[in-house]
């Protein structure tokens, strides 16, 4: 009998190793039924494949009307950017010039614009 703290002799170590070797040779093999259950779990918890970046992009723009909405939004943004850029490089005066150049407005002349030959504005008015 060995003392509780004594190391085993080499002979005892070898004898024990024979038991461990036998145990390694007799390890149980998982049954087909058991492996089937494990794989069933795997299938049930199989992560869905990650969608491509294009699919993820299309899904992300659905709230703004999908691709047509996104296209319109992008076009508007581009137009706004272009308009803003043009405004900073020139002056608003240039844009407003046609309006500011109108210094007087004659109502009679304006009415003449709508007149039809032989028919006066008064006739139309009754």
């Amino acid at each position: 009998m060995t003392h509780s703290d004594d190391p085993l002799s080499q002979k005892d170590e070898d004898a024990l190793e024979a038991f461990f070797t036998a145990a390694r040779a007799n390890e149980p093999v998982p049954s087909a039924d058991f492996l089937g259950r494990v794989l069933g779990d795997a299938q049930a918890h199989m992560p869905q494949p990650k969608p491509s970046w294009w699919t993820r992009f299309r899904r992300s723009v659905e709230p703004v009307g999908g691709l047509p909405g996104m296209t319109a939004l992008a076009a508007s943004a581009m137009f706004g950017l272009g308009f803003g850029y043009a405004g900073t490089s020139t002056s608003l005066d240039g844009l407003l010039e046609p309006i500011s150049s109108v210094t007087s407005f004659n109502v009679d002349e304006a009415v003449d614009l709508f007149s039809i030959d032989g028919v006066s504005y008064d006739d139309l008015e009754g």
Partner: protein
Amino acid sequence: MALDAGPEQEDDALIARFAAGDQSAARMLAARLTPGVLALARRMLSDQAEAEDVAQEAMLRLWKIAPDWEAGRAKPSTWLYRVTSNLCTDRLRRRRSTGLDEIDEPTDEKPSAVDAMITQDRAAALTTAMSKLPERQRLATHLRHIDGCSNIEIAEIMDVSVEAVESLTGRAKRALASMLLPQRDKLGLDT
């Protein structure tokens, strides 16, 4: 039996493939990892049905964590053994609390017989002897001497120091020697 035959990186790669939706990766992972997990659970619980439940649960946790698995952070086998040993500890604790620890004797091992193959007799004798070891000694001994884990891996699995692992396996071997070596004649070992 080693838990898996290939490098750990291969298990990491298989987990990544499973996470990407590859069903064949699940089959390969199950083939590589399940035998070791089941053997450990059976060694700890001495009950085939319970061991299968635990091994299935451990693998289920692997399937669930696969999308978040960080390759290279932990060895899949080490992680699985840790989960398995924790699940076994829970079951053994419940057994003790319900007074069912008497079923600790292995029920699915063939009894030793004169005409049985000698390796089966030795394996059965070792199983019986190991079932009488304290839980943590049994766990450390199985991992070290049957599964072939290093002391460092066992320390990680059991969350103890390497010195503690050496102490556990040393005491276990002395206890096993006192139980098994008197039977060496019967089991075909020279005296």
